């Protein structure tokens, strides 16, 4: 260093932050589309955090016993009662879809357009099957008598928290499936051939975020 100020983009650590926020300079060295997706996801993080925090608050303050998720979500498979059976499959499906999406992004940057389209379609199919299983889970719980205001297993707040949190997440997955299908179609049609394939990475960010939220829902709602 020796008193020299490094103004270049190659500066490391806090130096690079000061440089990036300094005057006459754009702060974030990413495209605006990617940056806006990140800022949207940051806002979404706060929405999901507020849901999970309110779930924590009602669960802490409930005087009735909280229903045991392990038993509420168990299924009988080939004569055996397996706890959280469908939830575990849904978790693996969402992780797999995140894997195929990551590879689609990688392929898009290698200019392997066809492969990227197929991987995005695979991601969308996996996402749609996740939503289908969630619909099954909802119908089963509704048939068992779980309502947003009451349920036969214990604390009344269980239903409200369940439908609100998984419903909002399911809505995100459904929107993501549509988003991926639209981008995949435009990609295969050649709409992005001039501009480059960064849109695949941007839609990928959204998809990975949906998977990320599920990691927290799985831990706090189903396993706690």
């Amino acid at each position, binding site marked *: 260093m020796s008193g020299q100020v490094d103004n270049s983009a190659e500066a490391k650590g806090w130096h690079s932050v000061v440089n990036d926020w300094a005057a006459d300079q754009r702060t974030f060295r990413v495209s605006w589309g990617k940056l806006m997706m990140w800022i949207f996801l940051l806002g979404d993080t706060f929405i999901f955090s507020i849901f999970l925090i309110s779930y924590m608050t009602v669960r802490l303050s409930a005087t009735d016993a909280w229903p045991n998720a392990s038993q509420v979500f168990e299924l009988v498979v080939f004569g055996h009662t397996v706890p959280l059976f469908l939830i575990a499959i849904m978790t*693996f499906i969402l992780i797999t879809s995140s894997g195929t999406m990551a590879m689609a992004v990688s392929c898009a940057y290698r200019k392997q357009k066809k492969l990227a389209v197929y991987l995005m379609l695979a991601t969308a199919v996996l996402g749609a099957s996740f939503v289908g299983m969630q619909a099954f889970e909802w119908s089963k719980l509704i048939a068992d008598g779980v309502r947003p205001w009451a349920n036969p297993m214990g604390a009344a707040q269980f239903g409200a928290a369940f439908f609100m949190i998984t419903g909002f997440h399911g809505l995100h997955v459904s929107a993501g499936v549509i988003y991926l299908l639209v981008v995949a179609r435009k990609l295969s049609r050649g709409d992005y051939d001039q501009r480059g394939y960064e849109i695949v990475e941007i839609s990928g960010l959204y998809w990975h975020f949906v*998977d990320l939220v599920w990691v927290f829902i799985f831990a706090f709602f189903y396993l706690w």
Partner: protein
Amino acid sequence: MSADHAQQHPISLYFKVWGLLFLLSFFSYMVDYLQLQGPLRWTLVLIFMLLKAGLILSVFMHVKWERLALQLLLFVPLFAIVVFIALMAVEGDYTHALRLLYFSQQ
């Protein structure tokens, strides 16, 4: 562009992370399957959760290869959430105590 640079990773990296995520999900499922209870259960659930979230964020979402300015944009605001969790944990306990005090049937 750093974005282009960030994409030059071998596909094998994604397969490795995918495998790790599968393994961690399996472990967290086993926590429930083996019916571990109490502080051990909560610690394991939290550890597996944070490891999975970290892997998805850093590798799949490429945060690891982004500039520090963007990383700070994403992680500094989360401090507000941590504060909110602490406040509402206190509040929840307080409401619980009030309910036991004034609304419990004798």
